[in-house]
């Protein structure tokens, strides 16, 4: 990945790696994507014709735990990047796996929550709350899933000894993505769960 930016131009005009510039741009685009989904949720808040609605069904204590899990995974991500930058293979293996594990744990919580809601009669077809809630959190969950696969791929690379200090940028980009997905969840948790 690092080579991709450098084969034509040994140095970039800004001194920043092209992957980083490109990825920040992509994150900007993603902000508009989630911004639009969150706005849709907000304009439809309280507009459902039938129940169950948010305050009847959302389980704040449970989601607080899953939020905590996801936020912790960001810390693991930071440690993973630090380990790769130090050139510590063992550290990289440990922290990458833990990040992916905490991410999967979050997805497990989400799967449990979705099933629970389904049994309590909330589906995307049921009302506007269900539709906007499932689409918003579903797309966030899909992003987390992509992140977990990405992290596990890096973990396999580390396992084969192909994630040395020179590859730190790969981990840094994955980290950018992971932290972004985390920040989006903070917005969702605040706007959907805490402020009802």
């Amino acid at each position, binding site marked *: 990945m690092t080579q991709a930016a450098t084969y034509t131009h040994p140095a970039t005009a800004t001194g920043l790696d*092209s992957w980083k510039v490109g990825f920040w741009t992509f994150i900007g*685009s993603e902000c508009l994507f989630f911004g639009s989904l969150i706005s*849709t949720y907000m304009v439809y808040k309280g507009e459902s014709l039938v129940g169950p609605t948010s305050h009847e069904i959302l389980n704040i204590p449970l989601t607080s735990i899953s939020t905590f899990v996801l936020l912790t995974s960001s810390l693991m991500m930071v440690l993973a990047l630090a380990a790769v930058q130090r050139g510590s293979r063992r550290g990289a293996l440990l922290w990458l796996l833990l990040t992916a594990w905490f991410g999967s744990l979050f997805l497990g919580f989400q799967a449990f929550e979705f099933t629970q809601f389904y049994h309590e009669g909330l589906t995307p*077809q049921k009302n*506007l709350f269900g539709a906007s809630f499932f689409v918003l959190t579903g797309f966030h969950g899909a992003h987390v899933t992509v992140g977990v696969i990405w992290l596990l791929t890096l973990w396999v690379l580390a396992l084969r000894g192909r994630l040395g200090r020179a590859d730190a940028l790969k981990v840094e980009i994955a980290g950018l993505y992971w932290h972004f997905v985390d920040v989006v969840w903070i917005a969702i948790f605040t706007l959907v769960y805490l402020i009802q």
Partner: protein
Amino acid sequence: MAITKARAATVTAGPHARGGIWSWITTVDHKRIGILYGTSALVFFLVGGLEALLIRAQLARPENGFVGPETYNQLFTMHGTTMVFLVAMPAAVAFFNYIVPLQIGARDVAFPRLNALSYWVFLFGGLFMNSSFLLGQAPNGGWTGYVPLTGPRFAPGLHIDFWVLGLSMLGISSILGGVNFITTIINLRAPGMRLMRMPLFTWMTLVTSFLLVTAMPVIAVALILLIFDRFFGTSFYAPAGGGDPVLWQHLFWMFGHPEVYILILPAFGMVSEVIPTFSRKPLFGYAIMVYSGILIGFIGWGVWSHHMFATGLGPIADAFFAIATMIIAIPTGVKIFNWLATMWGGSLRFSTAMLFAIGVIASFTIGGISGIMHSAAPADLQQHDTYFVVAHFHYTIFGGTILGTFAGIYYWFPKMTGRLLDERLGKWHFWLMFLGFHLTFFPMHWIGLLGMPRRIFTYYDELGLGSLNLLATIGAFTQGVAVVLFLWNLLRSRRHGVVVGPNPWNAATLEWSIPSPPPEYNFAVIPEVHSREPLWERREATPAPPAPEPAIHLPPPSHWPIVVAFGVLLTFGLFLANVWWVPLGGVALVAFGVMNWAFEPGH
């Protein structure tokens, strides 16, 4: 600036197939991808143009029965969708691809394979949408796809499915393209190519790319919600379930207004290259031209509801959007005046490219003025959904974008092929198209003000609009003749055009410093830039030849972009099966392709 004479550099790359279809399928060369974009846009232009001619044939006389209302709905929907998403945008992207890396002194774009992916996703999306004609179920809800007209209740069948799924693919393509060009322009500039030395076309590409990455995700959400309504029975836009169709209008136009600047800014960029070249003068007020382009991009985000004055948003919203819309005319007017000032006192050469560029100034100004008329909300209520609006946006999109793109084609064709387009045929093309264009769309101002609504397949004789409509139809067919002349010119000149050197127009920017057509690696030696018009610089002493560069390494071709793009096509196409898990097959192919992509050697 002695770069063309540099000794042949060593080029190393993977196993490059030089010819044959496989080399085009796997290419990651920005110039080839540019040609692919341009050719595809041209083919879609013929399709969309044919649809326009059928529309005009139907409207040639009152109560005509040439095509029925069903077909007519499909024709105007696909005409609009095609011209916006499959012609104007990819034609601009063709030049982003071919010209921008050359203008900034780069050897490729920042992410060559991503570039190929953007193209293939665009192509598959366009073909997918148009394949609906084979089933007789082409989209029929207008290019703006207003719900509830496009919701599951009032639009059964596959028509809108094709539209919403195809458009989603085009959105993905545009976001990836935008990311690529922002990175390319920010990061791959040659030494000395400061931001305020970049050619205007590169600047407008940068602004357009920012609009692409910010506007496209908004329509993506609009489309996703419509997909959920249509395929999974949600009620985002269905009043019966509490949903609100106005949400669609907001999301669509929040994308849709930046979109019109996505369409026009590249053409502004092309005109800003052509006019200085054929006036033998540097662009008047370069800095203010750059700033007004940026300002148009910014304000373009705050005017979307002027499309919705008739929706009834209330006086405060209407006033805000009316004022914002009037303000955006200022930077646009600045551009018009600066072009005129560039020509003032210049030694003008009326080549075909120059004629088209001047045609843009004349025509776009008319479209801009009718736009100001729309910005007054009370007046807009009279004009809304009439042919006056049709006249307005064709004056901007055809008079601006399409004429501007033709200016770009005549200007850069010699760079791409090493041959000139025939100037005599070109002038016939220009005059027929220019007159045909005004003949088609100028009468529509009256047709609209006299009360003929758009998107209706016929009109009564008593309205007295027969002769004006006939005039418009004659104009449309005149343009058809012009397009045939252009095609003939294109095919003939590609083989028999006058052979030219690196800089046939004596232009100032970097792309003209290298051979025509450029070698695969573009620049044997990366140039060093000292001014805005590097080729017009007279330097006392030729600088010492730069130190020989190490071997140029170009990325090898890759077939993974087309594999991933095919996965994207499957993902969206398989929605038509209407079983929720079937599209996951496409997702799996995307994942497989991306994994192989990530570990492809040589990249």
